[in-house]
C-alpha cells in the first residue's frame, strides 16, 4: 500500500517523525529546507522541491493538471495599457480548477497603495502574498525616505524577490503600474524574474485574445472614454473565447491623483449589449 500521498508531507508536518518510520521504501525524504529561522519557510520534504512543486502544483491550462491531487487556480485575462491620459487596468474575475469554475468574483487587481496597482495572474496565493509584501516594502520606503516610492523601484523590489525564489516553483505574472514623478509607468514582472517596461501588456490564458483587440485598436491619443471602452472590450473578447476567463470585468483608471475604480460589469451583460450594437449597425 502506498502511503506516500501528495500533500501529506506538507499537511502532516507535526507527524513527520512518525511518517518517516512508516513510509514506503520508495519515498525519498530529506531534511526540511529551512530558509531562515524567523520565517521558517518549509518546502516539501522531497529530494527536489522545485520539481515536486512544478509537477504537482504547476498552474497548467486544460487537462495537464488533471492528474494532480491539488489543482491550483489558473486561467485568467488581465491587461493594462498606458495612454496620454493615464493607465487603464482591466481584468476578469474567474478562477478555475481544471474544468470547475471555483469562483466568479476573484479580485485580480491588488491595490498596493493609493498610487500603485498590481494585477494577478498565475497562482492566486503567490500573487496576493507577494504583492501584499511589496506593499509593506513600499510603506517602509516611504517612512525611511519621506517620499512615495517610484513604480520602477517598486517593480524592481518585486522582481528581485522573484529572482531570489527562482526554482522554488512560484507562479506569478503581474503588472505593476502607477503614476509617479516621472509620469505613468507600467512594468510587467514575472515569476522567473523578468521585468519589462512597456506601453501595454496582457497576461494570462486569454491574453492572446486580448492582444488581438488591443494591438488593433490601441492609440496613445485616445480619450479617457475610448480607453475605458477598449479595456472593456479587450477583456470581453478574451472571456468570450477563453473558457478559463469570465465573470466580471473590473476596470481601473490611474491618473496623477492615483487610481480610481471605474466599473465592475458582468461580461455576459456586455455580450448582449455588443450584440445589439452590431444589429443596430447593420440596419442603418
Amino acid at each position: 500500500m502506498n502511503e506516500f500521498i501528495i500533500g501529506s508531507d506538507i499537511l502532516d508536518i507535526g507527524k513527520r517523525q512518525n511518517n518517516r518510520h512508516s513510509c514506503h521504501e520508495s519515498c525519498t525524504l530529506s531534511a526540511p529546507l529551512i530558509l531562515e529561522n524567523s520565517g521558517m519557510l518549509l518546502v516539501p520534504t522531497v529530494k527536489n522541491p522545485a520539481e515536486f512543486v512544478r509537477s504537482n502544483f504547476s498552474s497548467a491550462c486544460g487537462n495537464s493538471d488533471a492528474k494532480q491531487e491539488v489543482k491550483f487556480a489558473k486561467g485568467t485575462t488581465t491587461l493594462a495599457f498606458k495612454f496620454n491620459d493615464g493607465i487603464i487596468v482591466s481584468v476578469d474575475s474567474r478562477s478555475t480548477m481544471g474544468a470547475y469554475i471555483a469562483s466568479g468574483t476573484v479580485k485580480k487587481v491588488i491595490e498596493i497603495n493609493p498610487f500603485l496597482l498590481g494585477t494577478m495572474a498565475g497562482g492566486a496565493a503567490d500573487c496576493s502574498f507577494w504583492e501584499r509584501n511589496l506593499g509593506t516594502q513600499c510603506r517602509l520606503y516611504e517612512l525611511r525616505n519621506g517620499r512615495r516610492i517610484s513604480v520602477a523601484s517598486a517593480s524592481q523590489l518585486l522582481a528581485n524577490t522573484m529572482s531570489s525564489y527562482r526554482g522554488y516553483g512560484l507562479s506569478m505574472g503581474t503588472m505593476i503600474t502607477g503614476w509617479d514623478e516621472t509620469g505613468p509607468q507600467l512594468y510587467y514582472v514575472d515569476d522567473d524574474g523578468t521585468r519589462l517596461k512597456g506601453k501595454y501588456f496582457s497576461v494570462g490564458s486569454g491574453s492572446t485574445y486580448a492582444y488581438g483587440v488591443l494591438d488593433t485598436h490601441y492609440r496613445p491619443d485616445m480619450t479617457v472614454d475610448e480607453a475605458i471602452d477598449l479595456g472593456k472590450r479587450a477583456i470581453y473578447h478574451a472571456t468570450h473565447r477563453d473558457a478559463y476567463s469570465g465573470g466580471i470585468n473590473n476596470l481601473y483608471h490611474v491618473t496623477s491623483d492615483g487610481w480610481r475604480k471605474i466599473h465592475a460589469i458582468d461580461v455576459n451583460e456586455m455580450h448582449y449589449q455588443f450584440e445589439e450594437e452590431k444589429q443596430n449597425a447593420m440596419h442603418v
Partner: protein
Amino acid sequence: MDTVLAITFKGGVVLAADQSNARSIITYQSNIDKVKELSSHSAIGVAGPNCDLVNFTQYIAKNLALYRLNHDGLKLSTKAQANFCRSKLAEALRKGPYQVNVLLGGYDEDVGGSLYYMDYLAALEKVDFGCHGHASSFCLSIMDREFRKDLDEEEAINIIDHCIDEIHTRFLINQPNYMIKVIDKNGVRISKFGGDPSDT
C-alpha cells in the same frame, strides 16, 4: 531563442542582438536592448532570460566601475574584462548559474578590436567573429565565407545585415528587430536598431 552576432573589424567590433522578448507563443516586447555597455570601450551582447541578462550585466558593469574607482581610474583591458566575466560565471555555475551566453567585444589602443565568446558553462575563447542562439546554425557559415582580417566598419555591418536577412528568411521564430552597436576608438555607439528601446 535569442540571437547575438558579432564581428571584429580593423579598428573595432560590431555587436548585434535581436530585440524580442517572448514566452511560449506570445511576444511581449520587440524593442529590448540586449547589447549592454560595460565600460567606455566595451559592450556585451547577451542571450538568455531577461532576469539573468539584467542581473549579470549590471553586476559585471558595476564591478568594473568599482575597480576603476578603487584603482585611480585604471581601465581594464578587454581581455581582463572577459576573464573577469568568465570567472563570475564559473563561480556562480555550481551555486546558482547565470543562464546566459555572451559575446563580449571591446576596443583597446594597443590591440584594436577584440571579441570574446563565452557560454553559460563559463567557457571562454577569443574569436574573430561569433554567434549565439539558433541563429548560429545559419549565420556561422556566412561569417566563415565573408570574414577577412582587414574589414572596415561598413563591410562588417554588411556581413551582419546578410546574417540578419538569412535569419529572416530561414529561422522559424519571428525576430523582426535587431540592435546593432559599434565599438571603436570613440567608444560604444548605436549604429541602428529596429525598435527604439526608450519607446516604452
